């Protein structure tokens, strides 16, 4: 792919370029990397790219609203129809008078009904005598009749994508499993996790989404995050990619209260923060993820600073990564910085800044604390 092809692009070319749209609408690490780099090499395109981005984002298809209850209702009624197959189970609306040329179809339908009855009898037989699944599949849905929970286990060596009924997506790591109530849409959105999974939760402020993992409860309103809760491990790790997640221990006496309110309580995690919950100590440690990622922004941030006050530099980092940087403003007022910190991870950027202004940093409670003795003013 010749990256120079884009130099001939007008705004409209970007708007209707699938690769560009994909970056704007569902950015990934790779596409972020590609376009940020391309913009660095072609800074004269910044305005055009920004304009095209806004157009792609704002130009949408107006879709009729559809509530999850509505979906649930139709799905339920459909499932109940297939569970009680009778001669009437064939789509009734299609049974209405139709043009003559379609009558053959109904003869087929009639014989299908008979077949269906046979199929149902066979099905009933199989249900009473569970056989091994016919397909050697990765996805093993088993039924726990007692609690009417559905369990999905990933027995493969690759990640498995699972769609929940509310539109949320769960990427289940190998040797991990989740279970959720069969009436997931009507009841609370609750998922039990063993192992590791990445959650991309559909926004629904009225119905918070809960993940229970080895004694820890994560409550979200719509966001994406990873949870690692292997049975063999004594800790549970929650890493937030976007949005906010509230985390509390199941043993917390106020857990019930916290799960009921619509507000996020407990320890609230922002993007790039993670929490380590040690199950035998009932203690939570909030810290930052190993490699904080840039937040998605309309304009990619520039980390090129020329004789800028360090407060401005910190403000840029805070905004770019969504993290809090705590420092003594008065003490560091006279610390100017000239540095080009583009395309390097946050911790390297911090190390360089700190070296330049003779300071040091540490991570405390998911925040960055800068220790400084001030700068020499001569």
């Amino acid at each position: 792919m010749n990256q120079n092809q884009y130099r001939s692009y007008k705004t409209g070319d970007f708007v209707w370029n699938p690769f560009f749209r994909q970056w704007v609408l569902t950015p990934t690490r790779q596409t972020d990397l590609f376009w940020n780099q391309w913009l660095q090499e072609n800074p004269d395109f910044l305005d055009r790219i920004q304009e095209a981005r806004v157009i792609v984002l704002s130009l949408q298809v107006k879709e009729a609203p559809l509530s999850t209850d509505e979906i649930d209702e139709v799905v339920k009624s459909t499932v109940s129809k297939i569970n009680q197959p009778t001669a009437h189970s064939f789509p009734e609306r299609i049974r209405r008078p139709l043009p003559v040329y379609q009558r053959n179809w109904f003869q087929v339908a009639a014989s299908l009904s008979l077949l269906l009855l046979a199929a149902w009898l066979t099905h009933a037989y199989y249900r009473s005598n569970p056989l091994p699944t016919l397909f050697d599949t990765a996805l093993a849905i088993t039924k726990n009749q007692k609690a009417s929970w559905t369990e999905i286990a990933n027995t493969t060596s690759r990640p498995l994508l699972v769609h929940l009924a509310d539109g949320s997506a769960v990427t289940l790591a190998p040797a991990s499993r989740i279970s959720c109530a069969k009436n997931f849409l009507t009841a609370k959105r609750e998922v039990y996790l063993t192992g590791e999974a990445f959650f991309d939760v559909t926004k629904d402020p009225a119905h918070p989404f809960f993940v229970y993992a080895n004694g820890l409860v994560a409550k979200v309103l719509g966001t994406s995050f990873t949870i690692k809760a292997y049975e063999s491990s004594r800790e549970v790790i929650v890493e937030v990619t976007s949005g906010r997640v509230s985390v509390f221990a199941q043993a917390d006496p106020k857990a019930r209260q916290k799960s009921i309110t619509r507000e996020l309580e407990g320890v609230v995690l922002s993007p790039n923060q993670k929490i380590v919950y040690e199950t035998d100590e009932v203690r939570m440690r909030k810290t930052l993820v190993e490699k904080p990622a840039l937040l998605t922004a309309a304009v990619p941030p520039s980390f090129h600073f020329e004789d800028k006050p360090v407060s401005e530099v910190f403000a840029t980092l805070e905004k770019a990564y969504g993290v809090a940087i705590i420092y003594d403003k008065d003490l560091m007022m006279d610390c100017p910085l000239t540095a080009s910190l583009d395309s390097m991870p946050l911790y390297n950027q911090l190390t360089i800044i700190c070296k330049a202004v003779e300071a040091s940093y540490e991570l405390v409670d998911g925040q960055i604390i800068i220790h400084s003795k001030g700068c020499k003013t001569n």
Partner: protein
Amino acid sequence: MKWHMNQQKHPFNRPAELVLWKQFLSGDTLAFESLMSSHFQVLFHYGSKFSKDREFVKDCIQDLFLILWERRGNLNAEVAVKPYLMASLRRLMNRSGHPKTGLPDAVSTDEQGVFEIEFSVEEEYIEQESIRVTTQRFKKLLDELPKRQKEVIYLKFFQEMDRNQISEVMDISPQTVSNLLQIAIRQLKVYWKVELLTLLLVHFYS
């Protein structure tokens, strides 16, 4: 080239869907339920382009899944699930006629079929007045496209489908898809250039 190989939103989307599909084919009602729930919204949105009667659209989706359930023994185990479902819904709705639009069955062929799509400009993303104007112009260009071109654009850019999937959904040859897309995009861009030129000229002379 390597950038374009990673275009799929969820690299393991298809295998997982396919597993679900196969379980459904084997008669698993839970897989059936999950398949229907996870595709309901996209089917509803697509179906709404052919009829404004939401109950009718919901009925059609229910019929579609009932038919699939009953025919599961004869269905292909290796399909792209989403395009297959959309294609089936489209056929089913065309066959069932459009009670609320008053089109008799015989007329609702592909050439004259309904495809009503409404594009909108979500103002919340826009800060600059000039971009608002430009975006409105883009919307107008989309609105002015003929129906079939609109449908191709919708599937390509708003459902992120490839040429073969669009060809399956609309029941036309891949070559026709390419042609339609090319005409539509050229139209969107040609108008863009003309309008820009006009704007510049106006600006110049005023």
